């Protein structure tokens, strides 16, 4: 089903779509009004569902024909059995969960692979604003000020790589974005957003027993 009216395709949605095998099952944590899920349903033939806290966003999702559950992204994953989905997505929502490490662990339990998109706090603009401007950075991917930001955690691409190494999480794919183009060199300096596809590096124990 292709809806007649669609907002301009978001570049990050296309990048995420390219990371997903057609026909997969997908859970989008913090799916908002369901634009990404609708894109993936229409173009990647995924069987998708979402978790979303905003009641109005739920109505928008249902209108798009999506299955969505009203709940918060911190506790939402606990309700799913192991490896129910091929992919669990946190696009621009991981920085808003209370405890990201636990959320990522849960996501890796529920999904075979996890896709995380987040704003890079150490973009060159942000660095200049802190260093020379002396204020908390405001960039296209971090457009908020300290008093109205929904973001609880601020991280750089480097931080996330270090985290994955320490947590023994395998990075499958990674794409770095600046506005509508892909950044290939020095992403921690020039990328506004990062999208990682990760998976558990160690095989699940039931893989051996099976």
């Amino acid at each position, binding site marked *: *089903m292709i809806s007649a009216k669609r907002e301009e395709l978001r570049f990050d949605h296309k990048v995420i779509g390219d990371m997903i095998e057609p026909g997969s099952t997908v859970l989008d944590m913090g799916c908002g009004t369901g634009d990404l899920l609708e894109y993936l349903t229409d173009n990647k033939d995924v069987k998708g*569902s979402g978790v979303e806290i905003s*009641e109005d966003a*739920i*109505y928008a999702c*249902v*209108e*798009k*024909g*999506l*299955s*969505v*559950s*009203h*709940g918060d992204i911190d506790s939402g994953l606990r*309700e*799913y*059995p192991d490896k*129910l989905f091929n992919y669990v997505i946190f696009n621009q929502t991981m920085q808003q969960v209370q405890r990201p490490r636990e959320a990522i662990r849960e996501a890796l339990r529920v999904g075979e692979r996890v896709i995380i998109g987040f704003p890079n706090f150490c973009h060159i603009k942000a660095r200049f604003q802190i260093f020379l401007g002396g204020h908390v950075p405001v960039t296209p991917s971090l457009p908020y000020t300290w008093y109205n930001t929904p973001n609880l955690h601020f991280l750089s691409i480097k931080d996330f790589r270090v985290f994955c190494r320490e947590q023994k999480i395998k990075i499958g794919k990674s794409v770095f974005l600046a506005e509508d183009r892909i950044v290939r060199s020095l992403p921690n300096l020039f990328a506004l957003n990062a999208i990682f596809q990760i998976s558990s590096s160690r095989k699940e124990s039931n893989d051996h027993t099976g």
Partner: protein
Amino acid sequence: MKMGDARNRKFVVTKLYNLPKGEEFVLESGVALSELKIAYETYGELNRAKTNAVLICHALSGDAHAAGYHAGEKTPGWWDPMIGPGKAFDTDRYFVVCSNVIGGCKGSSGPNSMNPDTGRPYGLSFPIISVRDMVNAQKKLIDFFGIKKLLSVCGGSMGGMQALQWAVDHPGSVASCIPIAATYKHSAQQIAFDEVGRQAIMADPSWNGGDYYSSEHPSRGLSVARMIGHITYMSNESMDQKFGRMLKKGKLGYEFTSEFEVEGYLRYRGDTFVKRFDANSYLYVTKAMDYFDLQKDGKLSHVFKGIGARFLAIAFSSDWLYPPAQSREIVKALKMNGIDVTYCEITSDYGHDAFLLESDEQTKLIKHFLDRTRKQGKAR
């Protein structure tokens, strides 16, 4: 009401299904009924393939008259804002069926029906029924229409319990299920409120052990039961907004009359209820709800194993009688089985009554959910 509405009124009649002679209807308790009547109404047309049928299940005090107008009546069916052309249950598209539950008093077999063995109303000799019995009776009606699979089964409160029971007992006959403000088992608190209502009826001398059909009915008892019910259907917020501490005469009278607006309202609701409802039915139907327990001793997630239907569960933020937490337990158990489920907790001050009042929000969800279910059915 606007003038134009009166002319556009859709008139409907309640029809009656009779179990064919010689057949028996065996209840969950093992008791068999040799006669079974089911009062029902339908709206819209059943398509040739019989794939567009939606069953609406009513709550404790509801009946088969869910939508449209009965000739000579000023008020429409109990869920009229939801059922009709272009509405959530779009009768241009779906064939909508609603039937009175077994044990009820609006045309289906119940304690006020004639006992064929005695020629008198059953009264308490009517067997105890369960939500499963209600559903099995509805199944008879659906079979009578030749419908193999319902596009959806939907209901609020006790109607939601029936919808869940349908999905569990007849998984092959249900493409989607919409439990609203429902629960998977009656909690101690829910049983407690029902028992107070029953005791109010039984304490009325006119109740006479359930044998009152040829004398004065236990109206006082039933009225008190309904008053208790109404308190549980509203929220603290909605009561405060509607009545506050308003006095009917504007000042205190220092006497035991109904002085506060809220007292007058409850008495009014109680008095109108006794005109349309049978006290014995109130006992039977509340008992059926109290018996309702899908989980039994097992895990709730096991109950939903192997169900192919998709679900839309709806709860209301201020509903303390069937709180959202109970709906969330259902949703969780469905997810654990990988069942396609959508859940929404609608913000509302109306308490449990919200399922009858918040039509716009429910329409937004149900209309599109049904549309998707219909399209998925076609794609198969």
